[in-house]
């Protein structure tokens, strides 16, 4: 039997793995028995190793300086995250998550997992996609395909009714990214007609808006609060997230803002859903543009759509559903499992690649989400003006696609041309992102001096550029270099070695440490009497852990779990 290809949704806040088997999608559980693994990496001071998932997220809530969250937002940038004593790039952090997902998948399936389909936001640019691919390679995966998240969601949504004909719009509001795709489904063909999105807008922003609302109520400024007490700030973020979840169900909710030394004492606040919605409004407004963009690219009006599908965890917010209702004038279809839809789509894509019989009739076409082009010099009234953007591949072109355009030198004696490659919709290159460059040497000095530049955009949404000197017909020794921190082979190995050194030993039983960190977190929230009860349970568990007697440990584990559940009293959602 061939080794399985798994579908991975590498999200801003959560990641998960799924596999298509026997005509349906199966979600693989992690070590803690959960499907969703928080996309968090933290440094565990006890073992001096890196941990990820739920444990890391809990560490982040108490010791934010030891953890990195939401690093997907900085994919493809050179930004470094400080995790305890180490510094990591977003690629390395993502690799760590992917590595954990891989070992979880291997445990769940009982076989080696090396091939995967990874999802990326449709609005990710070339550098961000390349970075994601690199992260997966760093984690030991072969990336069979990268697929756009809303496209995956569209696959997941439409698979069961694929024989019909419909057009729908997928709104994907995840933890950190917002994507819109318009998809046309026609007798098994899923054709993405237009995309739009924003790579820095997601559920986390809603949490932050709520946190800002809370801070404004007590009259403190976010950055001042963060400076005053990072851990209280992290706690406030966690409470704001809880509040967000409560307010999407109830009209009124109470929240306790932790004390900030010198700024404000511990305060109990009541927030109504109307107030929260007012705080969300700027974010919702930002969602309008991409929706219009995608519709316009597809050449459709809202009335022509058959359905609005909302996916992604953040779409649980009622205000997002209201937004969809408001913009498109109809009831949106909320996926019953909004967190899983993207991984499901990724698994279906994996099945397509594996030529699974259950999806033999399905075909998927996607489009390029950005315009790609080259910086050119324009001659205007005898003057040479630099910095113009000459598009080669237009966005919303169906991929894979390839297009050639001719460029020439600007000076009579020029032998070398540097092609700066940009991505974006601006007329001038300063408005666009620089994604890489290509140096063409050996241009003949006489005759037809054109360079044919061929842009190829593959199904992963990655760009390849080739240049040929037309006159000589020879492909020029030109290597397209990606700008955003692409790692060479040696760098990759070094990063791999570094990560494996810091990887936690699987025998350390994450679920014990997870319970402990959860209990410690809970302890902070409790009243004095409850604190004592919890403290004694924690102490007992810690003592038993020293003895290494499995049955005793399991008993104490069960005991502490029960205590936590009782004391938590519905605070956990």
């Amino acid at each position, binding site marked *: 039997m061939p080794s399985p290809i798994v579908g991975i949704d590498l999200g801003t806040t959560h990641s998960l793995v799924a596999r298509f088997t026997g005509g349906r999608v199966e979600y693989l559980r992690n070590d803690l028995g959960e499907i969703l693994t928080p996309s968090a990496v933290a440094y565990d001071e006890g073992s001096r190793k890196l941990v990820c998932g739920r444990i890391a997220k809990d560490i982040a809530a108490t010791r934010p300086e030891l953890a990195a969250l939401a690093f997907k937002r900085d994919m493809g940038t050179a930004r470094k995250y400080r995790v305890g004593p180490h510094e990591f790039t977003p690629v390395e952090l993502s690799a760590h998550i992917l590595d954990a997902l891989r070992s979880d998948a291997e445990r769940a399936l009982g076989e080696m997992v090396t091939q995967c389909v990874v999802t990326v936001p449709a609005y990710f640019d070339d550098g961000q996609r390349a970075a994601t691919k690199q992260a997966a390679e760093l984690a030991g995966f072969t990336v069979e395909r990268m697929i756009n998240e809303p496209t995956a969601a569209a696959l997941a949504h439409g698979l069961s009714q694929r024989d019909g004909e419909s057009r729908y719009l997928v709104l994907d509001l995840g933890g950190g990214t917002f994507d819109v795709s318009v998809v046309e489904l026609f007798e098994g063909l899923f054709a993405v007609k237009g995309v739009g999105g924003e790579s820095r807008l997601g559920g986390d922003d809603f949490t932050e808006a709520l946190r800002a609302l809370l801070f404004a109520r007590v009259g403190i400024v976010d950055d001042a609060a963060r400076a005053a007490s990072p851990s209280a700030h992290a706690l406030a973020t966690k409470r704001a997230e809880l509040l967000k979840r409560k307010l999407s169900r109830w009209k009124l909710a109470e929240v306790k803002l932790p004390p900030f030394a010198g700024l404000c004492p511990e305060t109990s606040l009541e927030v109504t859903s109307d107030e929260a919605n*007012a705080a969300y409004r700027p974010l919702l407004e930002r969602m309008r*543009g991409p929706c219009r963009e995608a519709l316009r690219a597809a050449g459709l009006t809202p009335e022509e759509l058959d359905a609005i599908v909302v996916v992604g965890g953040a779409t649980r917010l009622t205000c997002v559903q209201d937004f969809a209702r408001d913009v498109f004038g109809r009831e949106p279809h909320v996926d019953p499992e909004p967190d899983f839809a993207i991984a499901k789509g990724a698994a279906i894509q994996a099945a397509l690649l594996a030529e699974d019989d259950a999806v033999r009739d399905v075909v998927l076409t996607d489009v390029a989400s950005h315009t790609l082009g080259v910086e050119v010099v324009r001659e205007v009234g005898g003057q040479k003006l630099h910095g113009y953007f000459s598009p080669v591949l*237009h966005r919303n072109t169906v991929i894979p696609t390839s297009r050639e355009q001719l460029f020439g030198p600007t000076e009579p004696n020029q032998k070398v041309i540097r092609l700066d490659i940009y991505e974006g919709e601006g007329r001038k290159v300063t408005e666009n992102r620089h994604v890489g460059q290509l140096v063409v040497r050996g241009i003949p000095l006489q005759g037809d001096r054109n360079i044919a530049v061929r842009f190829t955009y593959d199904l992963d949404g990655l760009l390849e550029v080739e240049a040929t000197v037309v006159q000589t017909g020879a492909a020029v020794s030109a290597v397209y270099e990606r700008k955003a921190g692409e790692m060479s082979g040696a760098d990759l190995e070094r990063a791999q070695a570094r990560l494996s050194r810091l990887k936690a030993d699987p025998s350390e039983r994450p679920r014990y440490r997870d319970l402990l960190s959860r209990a410690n977190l809970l302890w902070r929230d409790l009243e004095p009497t409850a604190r004592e009860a919890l403290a004694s349970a924690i102490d007992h568990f810690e003592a038993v852990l020293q003895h290494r007697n499995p049955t005793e440990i399991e008993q104490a584990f069960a005991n502490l779990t029960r205590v936590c559940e009782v004391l938590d009293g519905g605070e956990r959602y």
Partner: protein
Amino acid sequence: MRPDPPFSVLGIAPDADEKAIKRAYVALVRQHRPDKDPVMFARIHAAYEAALALQKEHDPEAMLLTSHEYSPPVGPVDSNRAPEDLGPAEAARSADGEEAAPSESFATGELEAVNFAPPMTLEELVARVGPERAALLVDEATDELLVAGSVDYLAHELLSEAAERLLTAGHDIRRPLLKTSAALAYSAPARAHALQDRVELGGGDFGWLDDRALLAHSFSGAFDKASGQELPPELSRLVALLPLVGDRWVAQLLESALSFARAETRTFTVAMDRLPGDLLGSIGRYALDDADDGYPDPEPNVSERALQDLWRDLEQRLEADPLNFSSKFLPLLVGSALLFWYWFGWLGAVVALFLVMAAAVVFVMLTDVHLYARQVRQPLLALTLKTGVAPADLAASLKLWPWASEIGRFTDEIRDDALLLLTHRLVVGAARLRRRFEEDDS
């Protein structure tokens, strides 16, 4: 290279309907999947799009639908999609792999759905659809063209003779004129004035536009000067839109600018920091009345007197030796000097003085800078907010404590606070403004 004849690639009759085209396409794509056979897929897809475009062309009803029936309100952060991508005739240019060369049959499709967009001149437009509809089309297309960055094209066409004829004949294109003029006012003042002169041909009162246009221009101008770099593209697009929009949009604009600011905090802060105070004030005026956010309200029209009072207060605090330096160190200084003089003579006294002074300096640096900073922080912050003068400059013009260089660090902090407060207020103010408009609506 001409594209493949679409219907023969798809293997269908030229009069096939949309469903038949799609069905043929899907069947072919199943055989030549995009991942397995990309070259063939590209050919099939090109043929499919061309066939659909041709089919729509023959179908007058479909034609109407794809023209500009759906034109949503253009917002500041809206698409920057170039308008030339819109027409159905463009569908012929596709993933063909070669230079796009739409065949003749596609060109005829443009007759009905006329769009005012490059390279069409205004003259041609008028010739094609008549003056009345031309004026309408120009008006409709202006915002989109401006957003797409085709200001130069617009200006050129609006300054042409055709535009003059339209105006003198009483067709109203004043709105496009004004908008283009406002968008150009900073980068090309001469052309902006010429455009404004044209408006007078049509007459009318557009006084409301001035204020906002002024704000936009001074904003981008000040930003360029202050940071030595051009406005970041997102902001510059927003700023270019400022004069076009009503107060409701100003609110959204500020929100967008701020969300951008949060993403690019560093550049934005650097630039905001050096913006002149009056500009911050004028941005503030749009958003900042009675923000009850727990901070002293900014007073755009703060009286000279109030300012002086504040200034005097600050001066007094600074003059009153906040560290009590003399009472703390004078006895120690005199005592140790006397003692050392008694033991070691004059040299000893000098050494002792030196040592004690050094210790005092270190002590003060370590402990009391914060005390001092806390004392002047609030008034300095308030003054910064009211005048818009950077705290470092304020500190420089005040009589400062002797170790003034140490102040640098904390004036930076005050500046950051001031910026934070301003940003915070802008958010609150913008939200409030928006709310008010919504209440007015309902």
